[in-house]
């Protein structure tokens, strides 16, 4: 303890050691919250990676998530009177909940199809297309929500977390980690699988090679017989499904209801996570965890402020406005984009509509 006390008392760097000590102390407590907060951001970021690796910029992720969140909840409202609230299968999933979830994913794909059509076939500006999707999604979900919510109906409920046996949770040192990762609902478990699978496929499979070729040099890709338009359509639609998983998580797992604009910018943080994660699935997931930690730490400082030996740190962090931690992910992204610490380079053909050479 004396060594730690000595490190804590060092001028200036002592604060850093205090911060590390504080993080180690609180992390097991906030880990589940961080994990849950990172899920929608991670799905959004994966959607971004999926689209942009094929050369389609997607800032409509927010709109796709919002649509899926709404459809998942609203479909439940209509299905529960028909199918009832049972029987529960694994993860607390009733047939109504499963069908509503499937519809949510479909809705995300449909919205993505609109984006794909505008940006690939019409060759419209992809940023404008994404903006339209965001405005439309906010408008239509708000409109329908106001109509449906008049009778304050109940949806199909939510997915439940997987309860690990206590023997596993109580394992010293790593029990909390196992519980954080696996004592979760089906969407969190799906996220872990998708991240790993996506990472492997993108860099080790034929599909991944084609996707990257289309995103880097579509002309060359076409020359070797890859259908650029088809690859882009397919990737944007898969991206829509991924964004939909993030949206469905909000209204069908984290909560069991829909509020207007409930994504509150997570689609955009996802975009930031994609950039910070350098357009790779693993990197994007890591960045999502980092961003969620920033918010989690901001909360825990208010609930359990650093005290005792850590008083110096507590005074410093307490002086920061709590919104600082909300803004931190965005500030980090700006710094990285500006090339101050490392550069993040997008696929070369990102955002440029592809025009087939006219057949001879």
């Amino acid at each position: 303890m004396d060594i730690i006390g000595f490190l804590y008392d060092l001028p200036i760097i002592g604060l850093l050691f205090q911060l590390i000590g504080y993080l180690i102390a609180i992390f097991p407590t906030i880990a589940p919250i961080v994990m849950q907060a990172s899920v929608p951001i991670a799905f959004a970021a994966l959607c971004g990676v999926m689209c942009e690796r094929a050369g389609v910029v997607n800032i409509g992720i927010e709109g796709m998530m919002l649509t899926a969140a709404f459809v998942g909840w609203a479909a439940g409202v209509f299905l529960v009177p028909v199918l009832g609230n049972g029987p529960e299968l694994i993860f607390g999933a009733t047939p109504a909940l499963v069908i509503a979830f499937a519809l949510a994913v479909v809705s995300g794909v449909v919205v993505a199809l609109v984006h794909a059509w505008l940006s690939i076939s019409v060759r419209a500006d992809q940023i404008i297309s994404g903006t339209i999707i965001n405005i439309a999604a906010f408008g239509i979900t708000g409109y329908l929500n106001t109509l449906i919510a008049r009778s304050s109906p109940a949806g199909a409920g939510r997915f439940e977390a997987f309860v690990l046996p206590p023997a596993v949770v109580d394992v010293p040192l790593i029990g909390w980690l196992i519980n954080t990762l696996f004592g979760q609902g089906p969407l969190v478990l799906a996220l872990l699988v998708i991240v790993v699978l996506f990472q492997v496929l993108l860099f080790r499979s034929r599909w991944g090679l084609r996707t990257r070729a289309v995103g880097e040099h579509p002309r060359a890709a076409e020359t070797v017989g890859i259908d650029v338009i088809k690859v882009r359509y397919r990737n944007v639609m898969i991206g829509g499904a991924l964004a939909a998983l993030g949206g469905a998580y909000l209204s069908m797992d984290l909560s069991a209801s829909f509020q207007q604009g409930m994504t509150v910018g997570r689609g955009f943080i996802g975009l930031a996570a994609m950039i910070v994660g350098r357009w790779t699935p693993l990197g994007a997931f890591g960045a999502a965890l980092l961003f969620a930690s920033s918010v989690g730490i901001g909360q825990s400082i208010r609930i359990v402020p650093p005290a005792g030996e850590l008083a110096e740190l507590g005074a410093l962090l307490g002086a920061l406005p709590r919104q600082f931690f909300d803004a931190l992910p965005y500030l980090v992204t700006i710094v990285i984009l500006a090339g101050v610490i490392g550069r993040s380079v997008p696929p070369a053909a990102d955002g440029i509509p592809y025009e087939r050479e006219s057949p001879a």
Partner: protein
Amino acid sequence: MNRLRRTWTLIALPTLSILLAVIVGSIVILVSELLVSGRLRLDLPINAFAALISGSIGSPNAIINTLVQTTPLILGGLSVGLAFKAGLFNIGAQGQFLIGALATVAVGTQFRTFEPGIVGLLVSIAAGTLAGAAYGFIPGILKAVSGAHEVVITIMLNFVAVSTVAAVVSTILDVPGSPSPITLDVGTAALPVLFGRNGHIGILIAPIIAVAIGWLLFRTTWGFEIRTAGANPEAARYAGMSPRRIIVWAMSLAGGLAGMAGAIEVLGVTKHMTASYGTTVGFDSIAVALLGRTNPVGIIFAALLFGAMRSGAAAMQIQAGVPAELVGVLQATILFFIVASSVVRRIFRLRAAGPGLDEATTISRSYGGGEAPRAA
């Protein structure tokens, strides 16, 4: 006759897009009513649009309210439109608006009892405009120096602005003893009301600024440089212009316009700010700039349309029972048809109105860490 035809080629697409949006909106109203209540009410769309129109232009008060709603949209639309002209996409009007509003309140509340009020008014509008310009300068200088794309930077800055407003309003500017964070009233620094209950002088300022921006863009060397750099940066460089300098100036000016929108909004409408001060002006401005085809005169008309929709939305909800959010659906639909213009043209056999934003223009080239533009 020739002139008439030219005007028609220019406004045909926006007009048809608006008509198509009304049709889509009617279908949305009919289908959603059928789903929710199980009844097919064919009169409902007519009632809704009638209420929307009478709520926006049906009485002197309604017209004043429409103009008040239009004012920030004109300035915001000019902000986005000017950036478009320079080949930049300013998604950051939202953040620049908020920072402008915050600076205006910070300064305006200092002058809340100062006489004559015109001093506080001018100083706080200047503060808001400059703060917005500074907030637009950041993505401009980052793009010029490191090539970081303004779209992502401004999206991030929008969220930073929301946090900044919340942090400043709930700490430095908070009125002690208030139940929830809120600033003081701007008092004598407020914009004088000229018409009716809330028709502040800002509704005259915005069109004047639009004319000034039009003059700047089309009658000055500086505007020529902006338009050249936007149309073809390579050509601009060969002609001895500096694309870097133009980027920084255009983004700063765009930020200043959005900041002024925020300044006029708080000095003319809200008079104070809360920690959760929110707005949709930034994103509506993108729609306004696109519908107005980035032209200052077009932007005034587009802003009037969207201002009228915002102003009439409440009446539509109260009188026809159609949720006010329908306005968002209409806006998105109008934009959709504008962007998918090549398709709309084919359907209606329209001629193209020269090079514009509608012909598969791409502003959003590779983003992230691109290359910085080369110096002249």
